[in-house]
């Protein structure tokens, strides 16, 4: 049992990563990775929300009418996200200002619906919780990788601190503005998938 739980938690981090293998949550991966900080925040928020909604749906799984299950999942996710954002506004206003639209964006994140439909509907609450944590962290990992490259090459900073020394600029180095544009995120995600596939031969399509 412990072994299986371990698998559930670890698989999404690499072998069955939600972004690069299941190709879920690409939209937000493009939107919030121009800088590292929002990427980390978004990754963590998604982790928490996936885990919680996975547990709720898993508890309800035997009562949910099959024909409206997607709607039920959507309502649970939307209610959860709204409540979290209200609580943040009341008790951690600065954080909620910083997160601004990202919290709302979580509702539309396909990882949530994907995991609810594929995992939580068939599994026990604890397994679903682990699956949510695993997938959230797998998502966060890709976001962080992409954001590091984009912020470093696009702005010369990481988390707002200057990384590329001044003498580089004096010798003609320039920040790559293209890095901050959404298409670059897509290309970087593509590169990550490329590396991932070359390490996992069985995932390669013939």
């Amino acid at each position, binding site marked *: 049992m412990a072994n299986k739980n371990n698998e559930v938690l670890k698989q999404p981090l690499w072998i069955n990563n939600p972004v690069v293998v299941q190709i879920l949550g690409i939209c937000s991966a493009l939107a919030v990775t121009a800088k590292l900080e929002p990427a980390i925040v978004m990754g963590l928020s998604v982790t928490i929300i996936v885990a919680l909604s996975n547990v709720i749906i898993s508890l309800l799984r035997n009562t949910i*009418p099959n024909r409206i299950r997607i709607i039920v999942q959507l309502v649970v996710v939307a209610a959860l996200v709204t409540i979290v954002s209200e609580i943040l506004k*009341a008790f951690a206003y600065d954080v909620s200002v910083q997160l601004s639209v990202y919290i709302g964006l979580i509702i539309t994140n396909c990882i949530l619906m994907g995991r609810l439909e594929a995992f939580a509907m068939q599994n026990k609450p604890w397994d679903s919780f682990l699956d949510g944590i695993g997938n959230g962290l797998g998502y966060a990992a890709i976001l962080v990788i992409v954001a590091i490259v*984009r912020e470093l090459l696009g702005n010369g900073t990481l988390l707002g601190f200057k990384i590329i020394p001044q003498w580089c600029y004096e010798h003609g180095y320039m920040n790559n503005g293209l890095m901050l544009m959404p298409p670059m995120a897509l290309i970087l995600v593509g590169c990550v998938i490329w590396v991932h596939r070359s390490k996992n031969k069985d995932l390669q399509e013939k």
Partner: protein
Amino acid sequence: MATKEFKCTVCGYVHKGDKAPEKCPVCQAPADKFEEVTPEAPAKKGPNTNSNVYTIVYAAVMVILVAFLLVFVSSVLKERQDANVKNDTKKQILSALNITDVQDVAATYAEVIKGDFLMAENGKPSEQVEEADFKTSYKTEFDEGRLHIFIAEVDGERKFIIPMNGLGLWGPIWGYIALNDDRNTVYGTYFSHQGETPGLGAEIAAEYFQDRFIGKNVVKDDDIALTVTKNGKAVDARYEVDGVTAATMTSNGVNNMIKTVLAEYMPFLTKQCCQHHEDGCCEDGECCEAETECCEAEGETNE
């Protein structure tokens, strides 16, 4: 009485009758290889989750529960949230005066800001707004012609703060601009946005961009001359400010916001009653703050 069912454990043949057949007609297995099949009692506990009634009732109950939950959460937290928003607005106003990192925002605000006035048609900040009516959004106020002017005192000098609202690339942007007593020199600014691109348009909220406005002049020949240009294109150091690199649309938004909003404040900006009060009615130069008659009288003679 319903017939019982017997299933052959060897080949799976199902016999209907009172007892098991002596020999299975398919595989010839003897009777003791037959097992009685108990008719499946309602397979799952609980109601049929696929029926229409169940679905509709489920949906209705769920929606009502969730609605009550959300209303409950929102009404419980409303007061705290409003207080937070109010505090944040005050923080933004203070930030326009280059006062940041304050611990007790409300106290500092009360100490620095002397009043929230509405501009009268003749350009005077006349009608005082009570603290209780403190607004957290100046968009509707501006649209309805109630032009707010905050009067502050920093290090013994009087500053005026004007709230602004406009459109960025993706959504609303807003800000506050603080002017010196001459109603022309920028003392400080604050800009914020709802969802501009991080790393590009969102940089208008960064201090380095806001500091570029300090010391610039606003009015030139009865026109708003303060302009945000494309980055690196600012020529006239007195009126022009460099925009954010690669965020021309948002920079333009800031530019338009400043021009449209301040244009409405023109009567206030061009009125300099305190600088020449030769008629002697304002002995201590306090006329604007004290809102005495003389400013109005002088304003009229100037025109």
